[in-house]
């Protein structure tokens, strides 16, 4: 089940303008679905709800089912809340060879949280993800948009503890 917003969702005027621009940017307006989901996710603290799908459907004039299937297909759209800092640790092969899985376990343990859950203060969520193209600098994590590479369990925790 998807989360629902307590109040009905609306975008900021800037967000709305951004989506209107995307609708005209490509040859077909359906190509604006992915960009629109990015805008909405950014304005809803990092995740998408059913209300958002219906809202986007209305403003983009695209069936909600069409937007929903795109939303569900791509891993960068979150189906439940994430922390202010969403920590994604690569556990695919090159990182696994260099301790990526142990790093992910350590971060969870230190933050006192299970995978894909948010810490009680709302600051962090931790996920294990597939290859991020940072294999020569393994192990690594992506915190929100930023890649942080060549980590040890200690250096990763020092960096995370510095994020307020």
């Amino acid at each position, binding site marked *: 089940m998807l989360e629902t917003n307590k109040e009905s969702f609306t975008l900021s005027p800037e967000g709305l303008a951004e989506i209107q621009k995307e609708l005209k940017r490509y040859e077909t307006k359906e190509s604006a679905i992915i960009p629109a989901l990015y805008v909405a996710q950014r304005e809803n603290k990092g995740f998408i709800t059913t209300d958002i799908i219906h809202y986007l459907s209305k403003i983009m004039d695209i069936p909600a089912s069409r937007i929903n299937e795109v939303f569900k297909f791509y891993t960068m759209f979150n189906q439940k809340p994430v922390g202010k800092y969403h920590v994604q640790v690569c556990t*695919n092969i*090159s990182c696994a060879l260099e301790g990526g899985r142990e790093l*992910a376990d350590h971060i969870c343990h230190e933050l006192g949280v299970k995978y894909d859950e948010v810490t009680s203060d709302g600051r962090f969520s931790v996920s294990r993800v597939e290859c991020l*193209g940072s294999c020569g600098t393994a192990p690594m994590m992506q915190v929100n948009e930023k890649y942080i590479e060549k980590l040890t369990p200690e250096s990763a925790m020092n960096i995370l503890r510095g994020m307020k």
Partner: protein
Amino acid sequence: MEVKYLTEFYHLDEFRFLDGYKKHGGYVQLDKALKMQPQQIIDEVKASGLRGRGGAGFSTGMKWSFLPKNNEPRYLVCNADEGEPGTFKDRLMMERAPHQLIEGMIISSFAVGSKKSYIYVRGEYDFPIKVLEQAIEEAYKAGYLGKNILGSGFDHDMDVYRGAGAYICGEETGLISSLEGSKGQPKLKPPFPAVQGYLRKPTIVNNVETLAAVKYIIRDGAQGYRKYGTEKAAGTKLFSLSGNVKTPGNYEVPLGYPLMDLIMKEGGGMKPGRKLKAVIPGGSSAPVLTAEEVAKATLDYECLAGLGTMLGSGAVIVIDDSQCMVDMLGVLMHFYHHESCGQCTPCREGTGWLNKIVHSILEGRGRLQDIDLLIKVADNMKGRTICALSDAAALPVLSFVSKFRDEFEFYVREGRSKVRGNFYAQMHH
């Protein structure tokens, strides 16, 4: 030895920006190309022997020749959805040399007659996307993009499209589905994209490194480009070296370079006290090689095919003797199961079964017949689906199990890894 052909100026920060790029020969080849006949460029690319650097290794000039000979609008799409585990070269190319790619794309677009191109970049590559967008803006301002480029009468627009996290979008028809605003599910070929691609229009999809190389073929000519490499594998290639080596990273070497040299010289060799056990030479989908096979391998399409594997994307993943092969296959099967798009039954169900069976062995619940069951499931997945993901999942299974069968049998018999003992139980799942 490393050859800095495409990567000559990658160490310079200024190369990222238009002024710095121009200081080192930037956009000179565009001017030269626009004075040539498009067919002349296609012939030159064909004669250069350039083959797709994304994974399939198909002749670039040949791919371009499949376009219909009419005036129908067509698209060029750069595949920058770099997601093959172990691969990180396109990221480097976009971050360090965005104009090199853009110049290559304008020349290629002129050759194939495309007025619009897209760079489809994986969504996680936030920084490369920003670098590219800025570079495209610079190129428009300088008149390298837009109307009547350098007075040639050729018009061309370019844009970046950001993916959203799906390995399958690296498959060219999956990429096109995604660009059209759909789930990134591959389409049945034929029709090939060159005939019917983006919005059902003729579309050429080429990898970042392939398109970046086009500029150098214009500069040095087909014969000049062939200075490096072998007859059937011309030019240099960027190899992404990762795993258990001392100095992982991207290294540009001539095709045909010995794999062992890449590991021991560029990669600095194995870590203290460790021995080479296995190498995946072309991204996670390529069958694994044993250390004995590595000693015989050169980095070109033919030699690796002869060893039953492939050059793929050029991602060389090095595995040392402290690693458990059952565990590594578990990592790979989790990945393919997660990334199967779900269209074709053999892949959707097969990747699920492979993942479950390997993990039941890892959890100590394996039976001896499960090892053969892995082979049976993998065999049934090969060549039976719309795209190559199913084969990409099956091939590692067949090679891991056949070459390291003793590790799988030991794990089943003893309920623990031959190399790492009870490590698996201590990891969170």
